[in-house]
């Protein structure tokens, strides 16, 4: 029993210490923004590897998720004779939840893990240390541009995911199952509110992008500089990102849409 408590205490202390390091890290990263903004080239390069390279997986996943929503939604709604609401159902699910959440999860898997591995390996090969000795702050030079790129990319990726998803739903619902085209769009436009749904969805994806980029970069920066350490850090990035995204999604949904 005592051993268990001791272990618990040790774990808690370790977690708090890590949280503290992560907070300082974040402050340092944010402070670096004013160094990065005058150098758009640094940002561009990262937008390419973080955003552009994630585009394909996001677009394809969005298309299929939208098509599945169209199919499943149609089966359920047509039982109630409400298949004209298909557009609304597809769009609401995508814009409010699936767009921000699934694209953030995919982003964590595609770009987050790559960021952790990249930073971890840079640490292991003394590149970060070397940069420090060249009087270049590695956080400003390496981490902050990647953080900004993540922050900018996620809402764009989520918007792409949702838009393509709606098109996929339209393709299946209207194109294959014969839902009325006008009703599909009209119901959707009636039901989806710009402020309440679209803006909140975008806010969600910005929050997810912030958290995923933070986790990924910190895990890389804080990793044990060995091949095993980097591989563990990469795993932690994906797992912690997924937990954070889903947990935060609940909290944000409750705050935005719910009356809790």
């Amino acid at each position, binding site marked *: 029993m005592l051993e268990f408590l001791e272990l618990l205490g040790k774990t808690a202390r370790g977690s708090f210490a890590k949280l503290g390091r992560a907070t300082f890290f974040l402050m340092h990263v944010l402070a670096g923004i004013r160094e990065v903004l005058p150098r758009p080239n640094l940002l561009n390069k990262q937008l390419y590897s973080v955003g552009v390279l994630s585009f394909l997986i996001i677009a394809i996943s969005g298309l299929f998720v939208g098509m599945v929503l169209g199919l499943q939604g149609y089966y359920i709604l047509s039982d109630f004779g409400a298949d004209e609401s298909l557009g609304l159902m597809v769009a609401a699910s995508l814009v409010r939840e699936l767009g921000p959440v699934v694209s953030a999860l995919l982003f964590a898997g595609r770009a987050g893990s790559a960021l952790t591995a990249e930073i971890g*390996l*840079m640490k292991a*090969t*003394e*590149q970060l*240390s*070397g*940069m*420090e*000795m*060249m*009087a*270049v*702050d590695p956080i400003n*030079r390496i981490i902050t541009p990647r953080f900004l790129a993540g922050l900018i990319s996620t809402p764009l990726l989520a918007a792409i995911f949702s838009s393509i998803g709606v098109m996929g739903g339209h393709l299946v619902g209207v194109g294959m199952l014969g839902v009325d085209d006008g009703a599909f769009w009209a119901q959707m436009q009636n039901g989806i509110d710009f402020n309440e749904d679209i803006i909140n969805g975008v806010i969600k994806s910005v929050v997810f992008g912030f958290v995923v980029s933070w986790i990924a970069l910190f895990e890389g920066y804080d990793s044990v500089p060995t091949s095993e350490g980097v591989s563990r850090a990469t795993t932690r990035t994906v797992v912690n990102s997924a937990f954070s995204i889903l947990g935060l999604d609940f909290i944000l949904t409750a705050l935005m849409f719910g009356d809790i």
Partner: protein
Amino acid sequence: MPTSASSTNHIVSVENLSFSRGTRKIFDDVSLNIPRGKVTAIMGPSGTGKTTLLKLIGGQLYPNAGRILVDGQNVHQLKTRELYNLRKRMGMLFQSGALLTDMNVYDNVAFPLREHTHLPESMIRTLVLMKLQAVGLRGAHQLMPNELSGGMARRVALARAIALDPMMIMYDEPFTGQDPISMGALVHLIKSLNTTLGLTSIIVSHDVHETAAIADYIYVLSEGRIVGQGTPQQLASSDSAWVQQFMNGDADGPVHFHYPARDYLDDLLTAK
């Protein structure tokens, strides 16, 4: 070369330095001086914290006690900006080279120039090619780091380290894992750069012969203390058994071949 009023002919002074990692004492009250314009070697077996010493000098680690003066400034009391300004005048050559793997050789050497100066690209090009010429790799400027051999990577890193014309360069194990030819090239380079550029060099190494060939003065570290110092000739004729064992590479001596253990026979005969 800028010198502050308090600096003497010692570019680095380590005074009563103590440093420990966890419970392990790495340095215990170590004092040493690095003379300006000379090649000074810090030697000792693996795991004696030679690299740690360089990181302490560079301000990347903080000592538990004692202080380190670089060019008259106490490294660990400088503000971040001042420390960074000091680091611009210190080059460091990491064991792995620490080249930035996402840029080619040219951009790696240009990196410190682009970060710290506002020179036009044409002048940067001239400087980069000059530095690469100095290490004999001008022809390799468009290669990526993963296309270089270990020795070439170290030479590129050396070109990068001298890009800002520093006052001193710290070499972390420059000879480890090199074939005889690249080893020879590096030995020659370190020596010639030191004289032609008027640098101060600090070499951390356990390769006795190569180091002894170019060093003006050698400190030998073991178990957190300085166990011997002097010119290579003085050390070769040192009466310390430990230094003799290290310099000659004997398998047994004051440092035993066997890790401390129970009696051999006992261990074998104890049934467990």
